[in-house]
């Protein structure tokens, strides 16, 4: 067996230590005791030998003096009936055996040489001689009675004592070990608790405390110090956690802020890109729209100058030049309008105007020039509103123009005026093909032009409704469109009675390109 004390557990080391100390101690104690028992037993045997020997010697002396040889033998054989006495011999002065319980010795010199006056140990026996007196026996003079006395009994006592000793010692050692085991367990208990709580602390749980912090001993002091450390760590950790939470929250919010900013930037970037595309489209549209009438004007002017033409043709081409010139002029007007609207610099000449009057004169104008039928439905009286009359008229013209464009010659156009609580609503309804639902949202967009054949037949800048919307919104009003495909379209606008001139009149700037 090879032991490494350092590799053993705390308790096993303690128990080994106890064993190492205890076993030699018990061996020494037992040896001491055995010696004492032996001495005692020997003394007892010696005493017994002396007493018995003296009795025997005196009896033998008496028998010898009486020359009663038979009685001598009788005494001797009686003596051997006591089991401790192994042999009794009568010796002469030369140690020659005269008579003995062991017949083989008679006549010989006794093997234990000289008669021994004191006890002498031979093997497991005592030899002791007692002086006797008497007449000659077989020509020899008896001098000693020598007894060979066994102390097997004493040895038996000693060995049984030894067995007892070993038994008791073993039980004692066992008890000591058990008690040591129990006590070491008790001593270890606070350490185990410290270990377990430390392990918990290692996982971040600082709430547990160990017991025994109120005790005065070293373990108590350790427990108190440990608990104190745990409390401080708990406070420290809590404040650190708080700090981490706060920092995390800060990071999250700043992250959120950054994300929002990024999204804003992305959105405005997108917006800018869209605007850039719109701008290109606008420039391209404007250039196309302006170049087309210019082409006709210049081309026909030159044609008139160079080609020999009939009178009719001349008249036709001059009319084209005039019409295209007007178209150019109105296009330029519209571009200026939309530019003002988009840059927010539109100025309204607000005067009290009567919408009913404006509607009637517009209808008169269109009826005369286009011979078109209008149904006008107006309330008996309509209050004046503060508005820019010329601009409202241009909106009316635009809506009526559209209605005429998109309805058949025989179809009528209905113009309705409504008096509302806070303003006046006007609707222009046609019974044309209507607008596809997916396109309704786009009709007020710049350059949006419907795809139906009626649209394609007519020239237009695609700005009319965008301008109308701008004008109505500049009056704090609203313009909208309702349409059913196949049933017709109704454009309506609402103008408030109290339209306070706004300082910032119009849609956000940023769409102005010129």
């Amino acid at each position, binding site marked *: 067996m090879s032991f490494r004390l350092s590799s053993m557990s705390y308790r096993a080391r303690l128990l080994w230590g106890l064993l190492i100390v205890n076993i030699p101690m018990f061996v020494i104690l037992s040896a001491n005791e055995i010696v004492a028992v032996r001495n005692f037993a020997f003394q007892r045997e010696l005493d017994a030998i002396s007493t018995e020997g003296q009795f025997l010697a005196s009896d033998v002396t008496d028998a010898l003096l009486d020359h009663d040889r038979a009685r001598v033998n009788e005494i001797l054989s009686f003596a051997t009936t006591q089991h401790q006495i192994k042999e009794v011999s009568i010796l002469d002065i030369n140690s020659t055996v005269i008579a003995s319980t062991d017949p083989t010795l008679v006549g010989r010199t006794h093997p234990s040489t000289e008669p021994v006056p004191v006890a002498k140990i031979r093997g497991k026996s005592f030899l002791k001689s007692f002086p006797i007196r008497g007449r000659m026996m077989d020509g020899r003079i008896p001098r000693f009675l020598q007894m060979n006395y066994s102390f097997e009994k004493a040895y038996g006592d000693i060995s049984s004592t030894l067995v007892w000793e070993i038994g008791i010692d073993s039980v004692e050692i066992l008890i000591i070990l058990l008690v040591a085991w129990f006590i070491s367990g008790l001593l270890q208990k606070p350490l185990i608790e410290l270990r377990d709580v430390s392990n918990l602390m290692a996982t971040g749980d600082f709430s547990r405390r160990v017991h025994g912090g109120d005790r005065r001993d070293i373990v108590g002091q350790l427990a108190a110090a440990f608990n104190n450390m745990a409390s401080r760590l708990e406070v420290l950790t809590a404040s650190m956690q708080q700090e981490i939470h706060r920092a995390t929250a800060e990071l999250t919010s700043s992250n959120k802020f950054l994300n929002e900013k990024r999204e804003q930037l992305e959105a405005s970037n997108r917006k800018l890109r869209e605007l850039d595309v719109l701008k290109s489209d606008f420039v391209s549209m404007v250039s196309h729209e302006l170049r087309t009438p*210019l082409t006709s004007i210049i081309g026909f002017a030159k044609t008139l100058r160079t080609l020999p033409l009939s009178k009719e043709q001349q008249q036709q081409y001059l009319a084209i030049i005039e019409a295209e010139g007007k178209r150019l002029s109105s296009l330029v007007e519209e571009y200026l309008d939309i530019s003002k609207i988009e840059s927010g610099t539109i100025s309204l000449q607000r005067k009290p105007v009567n919408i009913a009057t404006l509607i009637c004169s517009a209808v008169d104008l269109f009826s005369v020039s286009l011979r078109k039928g209008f149904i006008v439905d107006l309330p008996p009286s309509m209050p004046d509103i503060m508005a820019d009359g010329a601009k409202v008229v241009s909106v009316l013209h635009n809506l009526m123009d559209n209605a005429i464009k998109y309805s058949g010659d025989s179809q009528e156009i209905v113009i309705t005026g409504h008096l509302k609580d806070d303003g006046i609503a006007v609707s222009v309804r046609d019974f044309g093909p209507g607008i596809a639902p997916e396109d309704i949202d786009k009709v007020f967009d710049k350059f949006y032009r419907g795809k139906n054949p009626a649209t394609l037949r007519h020239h237009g800048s695609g700005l009319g409704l965008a301008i109308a919307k701008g004008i109505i919104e500049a009056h704090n009003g609203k313009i909208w469109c309702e349409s059913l495909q196949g049933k017709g379209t109704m454009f309506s606008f609402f103008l408030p009675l109290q339209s306070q001139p706004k300082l910032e009149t119009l849609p956000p700037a940023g769409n102005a390109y010129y």
Partner: protein
Amino acid sequence: MDGHIILIVDDDSNVRELLRVNCVAQGLNVLTAGDGAEALRLVEQHIPELVILDVMMPEMDGWEVCKQIRDKYQDSIKVVMLTAKDTARDKIIGKNILKADEYLTKPFDIDELLATVHRLLLRESA
């Protein structure tokens, strides 16, 4: 120049009339179309020698018409783009990608256009 058939495609009726009257005065046989689909139909029917083509038209634009003519007739039909689109990018699309024979911008000089038409038609007959 008598007898050459040319096709004029423009969605603006005035421009069409302007081109027509001037080309007729040159002795050309003139067909006119107001949109891309009609133009392709007339090309199919009459196989003109030359097409004067506007770009910005509703529905099918001039780019598409030019592409279809080139796909079907390769170089046998001359194409003159006549458009308000005057950016370098548009000219590259017209001349290099769609292989138009000539690219003129509006407003155009009628003499220049007629000279171009002559040049292309003469080259064709030669």
